[in-house]
């Protein structure tokens, strides 16, 4: 592959990284705190390619050439033999750089959803060991009657909290609907670095509002209000708490689809 093509590919890939940073779709793929690194990578790729192009052009101009002035497509343009040997033999793999470019710019895969949750089997954020702090959790802010919590927080408190901060508390969570064969879940996906290390968190929906879930398709986002059944998350059911839902309403997907 010629230098110019490599440079174009680098600019395309760098541009794709900058684009998803700019329109915030990067949040579908990596955690928010990686933004500076993604921007840095995009800028650096474009910079490196632009410097190489500028250098090639100036070298081309300075090269004594009888037919000078024109730059037809066949000319390598660059300092003619620079780097040839190194690129020899690895030319074909470089084409792979086009795959993420097309995937990001044209396809833009959505954030992980119900399929990822169902695929995860019994994986759970709850590890075999009790977290630090001896099962005493920070009290939930009592100023509001309805506590807005992450699903992660609800699961962890249901499993470990010995101080009973969730008992009798009305909580509200936001997640997407997963219609399983035998149950309805409201779930979120938790990531550490990127979507490859996703672990789902979910609540099993029961209660008066369960019937309303027929109107909410799998992968649609909802806000559910209700109460957790104490001690309902056990190792036997994969640490999935039962949630007695009182009301549910459709909401827009949040800009950051994941929990951390």
């Amino acid at each position: 592959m010629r230098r110019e093509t490599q440079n174009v590919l680098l600019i395309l890939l760098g541009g794709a990284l900058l684009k998803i940073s700019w329109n915030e779709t990067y949040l579908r793929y990596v955690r928010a705190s990686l933004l500076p690194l993604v921007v840095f990578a995009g800028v650096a790729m474009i910079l490196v390619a632009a410097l190489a192009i500028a250098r090639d052009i100036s070298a081309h101009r300075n090269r004594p050439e009888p037919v000078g002035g024109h730059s037809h497509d066949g000319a390598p343009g660059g300092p003619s033999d620079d780097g040839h040997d190194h690129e020899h033999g690895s030319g074909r793999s470089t084409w792979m750089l086009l795959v993420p470019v097309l995937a990001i710019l044209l396809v833009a895969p959505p954030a992980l959803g119900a399929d990822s949750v169902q695929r995860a089997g019994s994986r759970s954020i709850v590890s075999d060991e009790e977290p630090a702090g001896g099962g005493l959790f920070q009290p939930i802010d009592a100023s509001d009657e309805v506590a807005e919590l992450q699903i992660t927080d609800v699961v962890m408190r249901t499993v470990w909290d010995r101080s009973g901060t969730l008992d009798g508390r009305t909580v509200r969570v936001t997640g997407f609907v997963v219609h399983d064969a035998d149950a309805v879940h409201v779930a979120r996906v938790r990531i550490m670095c990127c979507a490859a290390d996703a672990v789902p968190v979910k609540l099993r929906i029961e209660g008066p509002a369960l019937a309303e879930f027929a109107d909410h398709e799998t992968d649609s986002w909802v806000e559910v209000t209700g109460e957790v059944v104490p001690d309902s998350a056990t190792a036997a059911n994969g640490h999935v708490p039962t949630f007695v839902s009182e009301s549910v309403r459709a909401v827009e997907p949040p800009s950051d689809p994941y929990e951390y």
Partner: protein
Amino acid sequence: MTTGTPERADPSEGTGRGVEPRGWRSRIGSLEVLCLLLVLAVVFQDALVGVLDNPAVRTGATVFVAVCVQAFPFLLLGVIVSGLIVAYVPESALRRALPGNSAAAVPVAGAAGLALPGCECASVPVARRLMQRGVAPAVALTFLLAAPAVNPIVLVATAIAFPGQPAMVVARFVASLLTAVVMGWLWLRLGRTEWIAERALRRVRADRTGPRWRVLVETVRQDLVEAGGFLVLGGLAAAVLNVAVPAEWMDSLGGQLALAVVVMALLAVVLALCSEADAFVVASLPGIPLTAKLVFLVVGPAVDVKLIALQSGTFGRAFAARFAPATFVVAVVCALAVGVPLLGAS
């Protein structure tokens, strides 16, 4: 385009790549192919997007893009470090920093891994440039294995993922360092330089003079283009396997240490997780013995599909075909040797 000498083939085109000199009219270059591919992709965009109707493909595509978006910044950091080595670190400085005896230099390189806080993708180009600067392959390879596994960020992440179990952090550090050092010594005894592709070892060319920043930029560009393609390949493999490996693999492994060790070691290879995130994933697997989890954490940063792709691209297939399986076995053995006494066998 109106020149009178269209038949004039560029000399470098002919000699450098073994391509028959041809007229430019008949030559279809890579740039033309790229344009054609882009046009086709835009024309058939709807068909491309339509593939996402399948939920498994959709999940796989998301994972693939995620691996790329996450790994490219770290690869870039790696190629920048390797570019800095080429442009600014004289060979004499490297010689002074390392013991002259390679057997003694191997542990030093392992400990130096503490200093490069990055993922495994970053360390491959760095190891290659170290070799080019005259560092013994065994020493560079030790660094390659140690850097992603024993750096402070990874150890802190492990401590957070396994609360109340400092033994896990200690075991991971010791077993990973042991793997790297054992592989370095093994290479000293058994390794052959000819397994490493000649292009990876070739000394930096003498004409690479000029301003240092220009050497830096050119090295970064080349390493990025070469390694980037293989990183994408590895990302594709990881995405496919991420979707294809059934979750049942991980269920019902509790108690059966031997089976759990084998499955966790293979999972570490096929999932190709970033070494900064793997501890959280492994902590989320229910009912797996701790020692088997340690195997996952020691194997992952040393051998996975993404790394195998990167290594065969950087050092050649003959190298990767020997190095990856050997590392796999050594990593499993080291993890068991450290894990069983420290974490128990149940």
